[in-house]
């Protein structure tokens, strides 16, 4: 019992209310820490890639025009490096997608906590803080390595500093970095997705072969229905077999052995139709423990 409820609580804890002027709650989903780290790694790799490309270009340019006139190349390289370090995140997040390449890849975007439009000052604030969240500890580590060991105490202090900012997003319920906190932003997961076909349409002809009694249809609630939908969409044979076995036992249904997917599709179709009819009459059963009022 606690598993299903705990799962639902976790899902709900990630949701944040944003009421549009039209009065609809968009119910935004906050990004996971894992997604954030993934996005940052992608961005890091892209930045390193650009830096390497820039340096190679600079070397090639100096080789062509000669070292005496190479100053302009050095100036461009230095400005490029500066822009990359400070401008990459800021310029990309000020664009219409409000996301860097890494964030796009993970389906994330930056949003103002208040739901207002994301203004430049917010984007600048959240990204300048990277200076102490990331660049400072990194350059500190390099400096220590270059100076030879460095004192153990200093390294420890550096480690503590890094840890403090690195784990900051894990210690607040909104998963905010220090930069997010100061800018009044958070990062939401809003992947672009195509509308997949309705499960009822996919294999419709196969579906109508089993019939269920009312008692068999009233076993589950919305949560179980949608979990079943996910299992069917993922189409993992073992998961389907397990779920089919569990449901057969639970509702006491015999038959359809060896046709697990057909059985599940049929059952899904039947309980969804029944529950949706219930919705029209104002009956919504959250999960199998919900006895209704």
């Amino acid at each position, binding site marked *: 019992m606690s598993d299903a409820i705990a799962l639902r609580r976790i899902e709900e804890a990630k949701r944040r209310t944003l009421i*549009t002027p039209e009065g609809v709650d968009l119910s935004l989903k906050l990004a996971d820490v894992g997604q954030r780290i993934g996005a940052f790694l992608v961005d890091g790799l892209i930045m390193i890639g650009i830096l390497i490309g820039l340096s190679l270009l600079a070397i090639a340019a100096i080789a062509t025009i000669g070292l005496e006139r190479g100053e302009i190349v050095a100036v461009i390289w230095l400005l490029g490096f500066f822009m990359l370090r400070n401008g990459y995140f800021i310029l990309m997040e000020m664009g219409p997608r409000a996301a860097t390449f890494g964030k796009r890849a993970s389906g994330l975007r930056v949003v103002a906590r208040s739901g207002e439009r994301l203004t430049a000052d917010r984007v600048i604030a959240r990204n300048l803080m990277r200076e102490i969240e990331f660049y400072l500890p990194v350059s500190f580590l390099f400096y220590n390595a270059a100076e030879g060991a460095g004192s153990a105490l200093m390294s420890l202090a550096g480690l503590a500093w890094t840890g403090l900012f690195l784990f900051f997003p894990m210690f607040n319920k909104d998963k905010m970095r220090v930069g997010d906190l100061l800018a009044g932003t958070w990062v939401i997961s809003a992947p672009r997705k195509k509308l997949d076909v309705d499960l009822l349409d996919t294999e419709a002809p196969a579906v109508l072969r089993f019939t269920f009694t009312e008692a068999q249809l009233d076993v589950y609630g919305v949560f179980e229905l949608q979990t079943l939908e996910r299992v069917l969409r993922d189409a993992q044979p073992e998961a389907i077999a397990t779920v089919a076995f569990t449901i057969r036992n639970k509702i006491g249904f015999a038959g359809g052995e060896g046709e697990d997917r057909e059985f599940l599709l049929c059952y899904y179709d039947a309980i969804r139709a029944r529950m949706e009819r219930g919705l029209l009459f104002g009956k919504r059963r959250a999960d199998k423990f919900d006895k209704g009022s």
Partner: protein
Amino acid sequence: MAANDSRRFRAARQEEWRRLEAILTTAEKRSVRALEDEDLLALPILYRGALSSLSVARETSLDLELITYLEGLCARAYFFVYGVRTSAGSRLASFFARDWPLAIQGLWRETLVSLLITLIGAFAGYFLVINDPEWYASFVSPDLAGGRDFSASADFLRNQLYDNPGADGLSFFATFLFTHNSQIAIMCFALGFAFGVPTLMLLIQNGAMLGAILALYISRGLGMEMGGWLIIHGSTEMFAIILAGAAGFKIGWAVIFPGEETRLDAATRAGRTSALAMAGVVAMLACAGLLEGVGRQIIVSDLVRYAIGLTMLALWIAYFYLPRRAADV
């Protein structure tokens, strides 16, 4: 049994959703200008249609796929429809005409504190070094001093002030100064979050270094000349660093003493104002880099150096603090 209402609902509306999706994709990938007129006109209608579909779907459909899709689509459309799309040019113009000076004005208390701390650092550095030159090395690191220390002769020190390395390397020097100083200023700002303590230390150190160098030159009777060497770019550069420190203090102060707002709101408000100020500080440092890297190397007259430095200071002060109208909107 399978032909239920939620399927019909979806079949009837999905073409509109797909159209909205296509318009959004075009607009996000390229720009609003890439949209046809009729698409642009249809966008708000399609957006409201999708919102109402979402409301209906939440109440009548149990198709998780459909609801997730609509939530994503509506969120995308919302951020697009309600994002104000002004051109980069007009945003820049309003930044320099209004937003930046207003942000700086909002920092006036912190700016005074920041200035005071720098002055304290400078006086401390000056008097410590004047009384005991041993202190010099603790304020000015040897690689930064480049031989300018108490063992150097007065002639060497004087030459350092007017030495013109030729036009070679000037622009690189200017660029280097700009990026280096900007990074320090950004650090000064960001460290403000740690209750302003590291910012305070950075400002004191910066002031002390200034004081120590002045002490060295004044003790050799070169105070006036050193002043010219410093002020031509220093009036802009030190001002920028002081403002960066002020931005840091603003954040630190808001985190410690949020006043009547919640700590989070106070930090956010301080963070946004200071970030605006900081964007301009970087522009100021670009100016300072040019003055230091190019202007100072070319102009060797003390008088002109003073004139340029003081004019810059007057211009900055007038630009920031002359009263101006708040935003019209």
